[in-house]
């Protein structure tokens, strides 16, 4: 089959003056939307990581002590755990929130709610030490060296960055012809994945 016959219905494949066939990418608007979507995912990553990151860079860093754990089970009164004890496992609907207390140099103390709590199981117990980052005017704090503080921010940044790295060259290629080689290089019927 000749290329003329093969590509007769392909709007953006054309023969150039050098006698060879080229494909010229189009769909600028759709590709721009893809780029904007990718940047939005990256931005979500930035938003997720922003809160702890600015506290790490410009806020306070202290070793705090967990002084209270609040356990919430559906349809029961919240249970306040004020001293260390075995905390039985709950179910999917059981939520734990943690209060960390920082002793100040002047002898006073400040309470912060850990910004990320847990379900089902408590991840720390009363009187455990946690290293936290916070702004003094905040009521919440993040654990510094904990996956839960950073993971989703990094995850969304990674995915957003990867997709942006796909979207940018895709958009930049619009209007620039790509040479189509004359024939296929292989017999795909031998390809195991081609069943």
């Amino acid at each position: 089959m000749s290329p003329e016959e093969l590509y007769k219905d392909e709007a953006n494949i054309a023969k150039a003056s050098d006698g060879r066939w080229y494909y010229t990418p189009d769909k600028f608007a759709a590709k721009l939307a893809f780029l904007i979507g990718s940047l939005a995912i990256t931005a979500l990553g930035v938003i997720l990581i922003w809160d702890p990151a600015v506290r790490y860079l410009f806020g306070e860093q202290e070793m705090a002590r967990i002084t209270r754990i609040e356990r919430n089970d559906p349809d029961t009164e919240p249970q306040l755990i004020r001293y260390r004890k075995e905390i039985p496992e709950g179910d999917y609907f059981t939520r734990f929130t943690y209060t960390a207390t920082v002793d100040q140099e002047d002898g006073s103390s400040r309470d912060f709610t850990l910004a990320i709590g847990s379900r089902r199981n408590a991840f720390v117990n009363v009187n455990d030490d946690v290293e936290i980052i916070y702004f003094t005017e905040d009521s919440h704090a993040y654990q510094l060296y904990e996956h839960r503080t950073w993971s989703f921010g990094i995850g969304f940044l990674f995915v957003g960055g990867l997709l942006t790295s796909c979207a940018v060259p895709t958009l930049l290629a619009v209007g620039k012809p790509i040479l189509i080689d004359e024939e296929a290089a292989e017999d795909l019927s031998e390809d195991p994945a081609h069943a």
Partner: protein
Amino acid sequence: MIITRKKKVPVHWLFYAQLPLLLTIYGESVIHAPFLLLMKKFMDNPAAIMGLISMEIYINLFGAPFISWLSDRVWTRWGRRKFFVVIADTGRALCLLAMPFAPNVIVLIILRWAFSLAGSFGSMTQALIYEVVPPPQRGRLSGFFQASVQFGNIIFFFLLLGRFDDYYFMGPFRYVTELSGGAIMFWLCAFVLLGISAFEALGFREIKPPDGGSINDGRKPGQSIFIHFFKSFYQDVFAKDLLPIYLFVFVTIMFAVNLGIFQPLLYTEQWGYSLQDMGNTMAVGAIFSITFALIAGWFADRYGKIQTFVLASAGSLIMNIFYTVWVAFQPDNRPTLIQIIVIGNITQAFMMVKSVVTYPLMMEYVKRSRMGSASAGIYLFQNLFRSLVLLFVGVWLVWWSVWFFPQAGYQTATTFPDEIDADQLRSKIESTGLDPDDYLLRPIHQYGVDKETSMRWWIHRNDEETADILAELKDLKNELSSLEAEVTSPFLTEPERDAINEKIDTAKSRTTEINETLERGKSELHRKLYAVLGDALFEPGAQLRDARFEDDTLFLALTTIEELPQEQVELFEQNLNGPQYQVTASKNDLSSSRWRSEVRVEVVDGETPGLQVNAKFDPNFTRIYRILNTGDNLIPATFELANSINSIFQSGLGRGNQQFTITSVEKGTRDGQATLSFELSISQNALTSDASLLAEALTQEQAIEDASTQQIADNRYRFELQLASEAMTAKNSDWLSRSRADEIRTRLDSLMQGEAFAQGLATETYLRLADVLASQPFYVNIPENTPRSKHTEREYEYFFSSKTLEIASDLVGFAIIFFIIYIEKKGVIRRYGAEEDLKR
């Protein structure tokens, strides 16, 4: 922008070309362990879970081969393969977005099947990639791909898996909503799939091939396309010459039998590790995998594929046996994380070698012209066998539980004065007229200790009704969760809202009924056993060797079952920290100031281990508690109230001895409401002298309804607090604490000469101290007469059940390998592919 059918592509195209398959694998990562955890929200039975999940394979069984076949024979304005791939990834993304919202297990499993069905449209993703990358460059593509897959595994296991049970409610979420880590994880993966489908649609361009097939090739006039597909496809796939590879498929499935998606439950429910621990272990495994994949390829080329396969299979069987025996000899049958990493990765290395050589080995038995059919057949049989094995693994876990483990029911933990074995306990039960065969007995030990005898025994009775009502309770919780979210919708009309509220009331009332039934069952077992075993149990109060209260210092001498290691004493003292104790200044690890409780603990060595505790109380606290205590030795609300008041003053005025003094504490009533008044003297070096601020802080406490203050001299204020009624009168609703307090009452009476306030202090301190001592990382128990009862769900065991199955299936695998070697020697089967290569 990349196009297909190039003879040579730029290197950066290799990276982009692999992304459709790579990001699909990344996106699918939540469909394994995290999906199981999502299913666990609705059901626990492994057989039911696996039964439901394995059904997706039947949905996919015909879809994927048909789509692959079709993609060779069609051409659309969007190409022939990316058209399907985009449908696949978009469909899967939408399923993942919806999964966290599934209100019940039916919707969740339908979404899972839809995910799988959408996935069958993507069965030719690899073909699309191979059409972009020409054969001479596919080696580098494969290298990129393997490294990227393992990198993704590291990211997923190290960063994301452990986030499933996180709960995000502040930071950037505080303006929006509360989110669970599980939901975010699913949405992240949905974004991955949506993103890659957009890239496939816009960044890939298929160039029409000159040799493209047609759906009419070989098709009789008027024949249905499906009939045509089934006839041509299955005539090829069920041909006799492909029998050896199907035997190999069965062998590989036998060697790959494992816990699969239940792996997280082995780590979390059985071994007590966190999901993060599991993720870290898996991430280390991914690094090992990269290394061993390279070595395995070299080894197979050098020593022959069948020899490599047999050796690797023998290696993994030996490791499976070794791992099983090793764990059997570990305390609590619980290996350490290091042991899991080392043993697990050696086993994984053998598995990796096998997986690297399996496909090329199978292809040695296939003529080159039959490879396409062979691949289709492999896909078909692999899925069929795998579904059966998956289903069997679930059933096997249930059988194992039924054979060897307690089912749902009620259990009581009891303590005896001496160590006894199971026979002694059985005869004790028998002597009271009960049938010991109705009960399951198990010794309770400290972590890391395994013995046949123990002072503490766990007595369990199975109860069929409990299993049913616990399952119903789970359904009710899910139903309530959905209804409570639904009822807040602004789009509801009043009648609709009323109808939902009615459903909520019905569900809540049934929940209450079930909880009462469970309580009754628990109490019944407790009463029955306590009535007959009560005299044989540990003597009430005997755990208290001595108790005194002098100069605001409480001295308690206690018997313990296990000995507290000397190196844990300081940590234990720190963990007793609380606002009721006198404090001294110290520094923490970051040299920040820290106040430590003046609690000193000494370990008593000897045949009967024990502890001596000297706890110096803050005089401000004791002055309040002395007045609040009404003579009962246990009213935790008053103890907590005294703690809270002291804590608020410590926080606002500063810690240490000299910051403030509370005196003249009085209890009274005003307008029928309990009041507490006291004088507060604030010292010069206190952090503030603003009493109104302190009064405001006091009103934040639930037990204090109002607080007023009046200045009576310089830096001296009279506070009056109006107390919530519960603060003064409520006894602990927790039956267990009440019973534990009652058990030491008589002993405390004799030791402390009836001083009610000191006895209250001693009781509260005893309960806290015993709880802290029993918690992680100490696990030291104080013997108590009070049995602890609870209802339990069916217990599952994941390690030995799966390992025995793995060993058995390995042996079946070996039998089939030797059968293949035997029939090959007899000339029944031949290596057509290898023979063709030799002739070239």
